[in-house]
């Protein structure tokens, strides 16, 4: 079989650039989706039906439609309408909105797993509602949330590959470019898969480690 590693090797700096782009887009999306997740999780617990209903609609909409469809819809319709023309910003926004819905559900489940007696105890010792969240509910919920959150980060990294469709030069997009320049499919796409594994394997290890560390009886 004719091997074309030499041709692909010439593009290594391009590939590395794509790799770095994937990393920072994923990190930015994780941070933003974490913020979205916290806010939406709290909104879903709102006593006002309009607020909790809207938050729920958002979560259901995101979870009920493919990410690819959301990327297309956001890039060609919404971003165009509100005048965002930086595709990297669009990419991070859509990935964050997507991931935020899942994180919101994780956080909500984490908060709801806290026994009502814990909240009662927090009230009894005189903590304000905000303090109760800060010192009692969130730290306990965090232990529940951290392992699936690490998994979610791995998902963001993998899902960011779909941003290649709107021309963001991340890892997948770069590999496609190299493939079309060198006509070497295997040599372009094998490093692509390896690139993702380099990022996701440590995370899944970390996730398992955290799961063990945070195990304690409540």
């Amino acid at each position, binding site marked *: 079989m004719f091997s074309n590693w030499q041709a692909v090797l010439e593009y290594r700096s391009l590939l590395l650039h794509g790799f770095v782009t994937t990393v920072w887009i994923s990190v930015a999306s994780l941070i933003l989706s974490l913020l979205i997740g916290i806010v939406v999780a709290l909104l879903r617990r709102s006593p006002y039906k309009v607020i909790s209903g809207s938050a729920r609609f958002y979560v259901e909409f995101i979870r009920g439609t493919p990410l690819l469809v959301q990327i297309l819809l956001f890039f060609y319709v919404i971003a165009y309408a509100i005048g965002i023309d930086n595709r990297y910003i669009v990419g991070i926004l859509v990935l964050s909105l997507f991931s935020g819905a899942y994180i919101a559900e994780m956080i909500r489940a984490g908060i709801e797993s806290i026994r009502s*007696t814990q909240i009662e*105890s927090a009230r*009894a*010792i*005189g903590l304000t509602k905000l*303090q109760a969240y800060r010192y009692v509910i969130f730290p306990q919920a965090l232990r529940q949330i951290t392992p699936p959150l690490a998994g979610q980060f791995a998902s963001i990294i993998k899902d960011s590959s779909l941003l290649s469709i709107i021309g963001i030069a991340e890892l997948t997009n770069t590999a496609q470019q190299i493939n079309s320049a060198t006509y070497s499919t295997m040599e372009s796409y094998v490093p692509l898969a390896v690139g993702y594994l380099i990022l996701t394997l440590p995370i899944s290890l970390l996730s398992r480690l955290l799961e063990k560390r945070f195990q304690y009886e*409540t």
Partner: protein
Amino acid sequence: MKLKIDKIVKVFGDQEAIAPLSLDLGDVKTLSLIGPSGSGKSTLLRMLAGLQLPTSGTIAINDYLLSPDEDTLRAYRRTIGVVFQSWNLFPHLTALENIVLPLHRVHGIPLEEAEQRSLELLQRFQLAEHAHKKPSELSGGQAQRVALMRAVAHHPQLLFLDEPTSALDPLMTAEVLDLVMELKQEGRNLVIVTHHLTFARKIADHVLFMADGKVLESGSADLVFGNPKTALAQLYMSKTMNY
């Protein structure tokens, strides 16, 4: 403590947990609430502790009228201590941190001083070796004693105990009740809901016997235990005091 209850009612859905109740106690050091399950004694304690509001009526403790406003009510809760049946402690914090948290965050005591004070308290009640353990590493009795420490660390005017030993085995129960007795001897005022009638009799200077959301008997421990007036209380005492 002075306790004045004026026509309080507590309704959950269509269930009346507390029927119209009025009570005026002049000077009580330890108040025991006893009676069958579902009699409304925990509900009454929770209202006295400012954790729940009566549907109607008013409660005044030491001439302080409990307000329905959450902020005012929280200010009141800061002056008392509460221990529940179980799951009092925060599982992500050590025994020491559990006591320090309210001292530092609620009562504004500097961290070092709060830790110092908490450690002294744990030492005094033979819990120092467990200071840095998480609640899951403590026995039920130890955890409940730490919960008591947390409830008294800020020198509350009143201590509320809601069936503090119901989830414990007999030995642990004894540990906890010994500590409650010690706290009483220190001069702390207590309100306790308990199924341990002998203990209730021993510790209380005033007893309320409740059933179906009503106070059927109210008087000194000797009077309520020794000479109950209502048939229900007589039956309850005769059935339960045998064991």
